[in-house]
């Protein structure tokens, strides 16, 4: 009797296992708007009449912590537990050997635009569908900046502080016209230790933790002054005026106390908590922070008072790092045919509109965005900024891009913390990058 029960259980398990294999399994980005959006999109796809039972989509999510490391281990081990997996511009070169290029429908450029499609390309091949785009906004408190732009007493004080700290008497300008100097002067003005009358404790909050994503945020300072990782010949160009200016800017802001003392341990969440407290006037931050900061239930002190513009301008103009998140095809996928069908559907305007309505942040062309423009006005700004100011560093999608970010994070945070000189940090970065990015 027991043996018969055991045999039945085993048969049932085998049947379940083969059913699972017949589905399209998708490993998504867990725990944020991307997860909710992907769930809605998968539901919409599964509800379509022409999707075979064997091609229904099943989603898998695990923790964000160490996500890329776990994914790398799974892919390298040839795991077939998922057919489609998350992909990011900065990690595409690392995962490309374990993935298969895909051929998207001819209509994909009309949905995303060519520039956005390139965020999922490596060595000229398309590796995924770009479902979300990340870039940076300069967040600022509209109420405070409005007063600064209209109050003569504040403007006089602003002039005094900029003359004393930056060596030039400056006049406040609108945030969309800020240079890095204007940003610096504004942060000094709104820092209580510099200006005791400041309504906020700090002028800004910088994310300076030894973490690769923080270097992406900081890169806007470099690119706006014409900096890049490499030149056309592949020579490392980090020991340049642009890198020096960007590094010194952060160091000055930290040393002047315009950002919280613990900024060297801050990342996305800590910076949002600081800005959300109402004690910080400006913040260079990922676009994904906006919905929560502008939600009166989550950030009652600042909701409704936040303005966003592109990061300040340098000599070369105004720039923001961009990268895409998307879904691509695992080389060891067990249901490749079904997976490609889902990817092709995902690359349509219909799918992206479902995805966007559920909270995702795809960068869409005006034509594809039009039916949902009223529900998601922020996506128009996202697409607009990506097209106007977006950049990817030369080598930023290479197989070693993540390691380069890690290297810069370690060296540059060492400089900001005062553990090494600027020359030492740049020399070590250049040497490490030469090894990582050599052809």
């Amino acid at each position, binding site marked *: 009797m027991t043996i018969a029960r055991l045999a039945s259980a085993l048969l049932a398990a085998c049947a379940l296992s083969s059913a699972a294999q017949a589905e399209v399994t998708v490993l998504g980005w867990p725990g944020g708007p991307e997860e909710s959006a992907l769930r809605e999109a998968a539901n919409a796809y599964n509800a379509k009449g022409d999707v075979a039972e064997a091609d229904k989509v099943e989603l898998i999510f695990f923790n964000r912590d*160490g996500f890329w*490391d776990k994914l*790398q*281990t799974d*892919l*390298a081990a040839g795991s077939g537990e998922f057919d489609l997996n998350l992909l990011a511009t900065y990690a595409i070169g*690392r995962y490309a*050997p*374990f993935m298969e290029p895909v051929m998207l429908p001819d209509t994909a450029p009309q949905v995303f635009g060519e520039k956005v499609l390139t965020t999922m390309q490596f060595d000229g091949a398309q590796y995924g569908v770009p479902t979300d785009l990340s870039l940076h906004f300069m967040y600022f408190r509209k109420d405070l900046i409005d007063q600064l732009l209209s109050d003569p007493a504040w403007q006089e004080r602003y002039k005094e502080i900029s003359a004393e700290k930056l060596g030039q008497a400056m006049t406040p300008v609108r945030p969309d016209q800020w240079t890095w100097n204007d940003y610096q002067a504004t942060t000094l003005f709104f820092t209580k230790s510099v200006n005791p009358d400041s309504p906020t404790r700090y002028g800004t909050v910088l994310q*300076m*933790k*030894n*973490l*690769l994503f923080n270097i992406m945020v900081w890169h806007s300072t470099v690119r706006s002054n014409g900096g890049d990782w490499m030149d056309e010949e592949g020579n490392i160009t980090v020991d340049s005026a642009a890198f020096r200016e960007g590094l010194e800017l952060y160091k000055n802001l930290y040393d002047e106390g315009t950002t*919280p*003392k*613990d900024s*060297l*341990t801050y990342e996305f969440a*800590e910076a949002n*908590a*600081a800005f*959300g*407290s109402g*004690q910080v006037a400006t913040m260079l931050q990922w676009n994904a922070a906006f919905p929560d900061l502008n939600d009166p239930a989550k950030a009652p002190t600042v909701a409704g008072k936040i303005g966003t513009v592109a990061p300040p301008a340098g000599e070369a103009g105004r720039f923001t790092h961009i990268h895409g998140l998307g879904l691509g095809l695992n080389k060891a996928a067990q249901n490749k045919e079904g997976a490609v069908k889902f990817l092709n559907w995902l690359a349509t305007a219909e799918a992206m509109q479902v995805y966007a309505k559920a909270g995702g942040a795809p960068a869409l062309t005006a034509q594809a965005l039009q039916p949902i423009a009223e529900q998601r006005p922020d996506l128009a700004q996202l697409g607009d900024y990506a097209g106007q100011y977006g950049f990817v560093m030369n080598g930023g999608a290479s*197989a*070693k891009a*993540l*390691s380069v970010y*890690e*290297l810069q994070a*370690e*060296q540059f*945070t*060492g*400089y*900001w*913390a*005062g*553990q*090494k000189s600027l020359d030492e940090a740049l020399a070590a970065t250049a040497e490490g990058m030469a090894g990582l990015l050599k052809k």
Partner: protein
Amino acid sequence: MQCALARDGRILVAPLTIFLLAMLGLPLVVDLIYSVSAVEFATILSPEFVGLANYASALSSESFWRAAWFSLRFGLLCATAQVLIGLFLAIFLEPLLARRPWLMAFLMLPMMVAPALVGLMYRLVLHEFVGVVPWFMFTYVGDSPSFLGPDNAFKTLVVVEVLQWTPFALLILYSAYVSIPADVREAAAIDGAGTWRRLVSIDLPLMGPAIGATFFIRFIDSFRVFDNVYTLTGAGAGGSTATMSIWVYEAFFKSGDIGRAVAASMLLLAASWLVLSVVHRLSQRRAGASA
């Protein structure tokens, strides 16, 4: 008969031997191969022999030695503090715990929380804008230090580790303390030994092996710390709070430098074996002396 006994013995030992070979021996062999190879995730099945280059690279790396120094200082300081505080609490609380033994369960609570959660908890508690500690500091002192900044990160990490793991030391040392026969202390008291004299001449010598074992276990645990440090400060600004475990993890996953990471872990294994040999020899000598 003798032959049958030997055969039975081999059969009984076989499962454990196979288990150990599969779970420890095989990974060790793979690690040895990777430690002398140029290998990345893309070439994980086709490592290229490079001799001792990975060992040389790890040993000549400034960050490796900085992480080793950090771990050593962290391990020694935490183990010392935990043993001293645990010893004090074991003796000081003994009368109370003898009457209310259930209190020990409460004292053990910090140890039952996952270290990664402890790290996250303190990240919140010490955050300038949402944390309880900075709030009190700003309210009553007017300013709050940078608990996790470059100047204070090491001290904060030590305090967090000590707060979480002192209960472990307390548990072992309390057990050792109460297991000392009461008549030994009574005899010493009759002979005129005071409280301090009894502590120094009776209690501490009899608790010596337990104190040594506790120190050793806590040192190993603190030396190889990963979770709470990683969630609190990561590798720290410029790698200033990278422990050996974090160094190996980052070399392996973040830099994809598998050969170097594995070589470093093999060096750690060799160092651990050396320390264990010394401790083993010392304990054997002590056992010989007592016999």
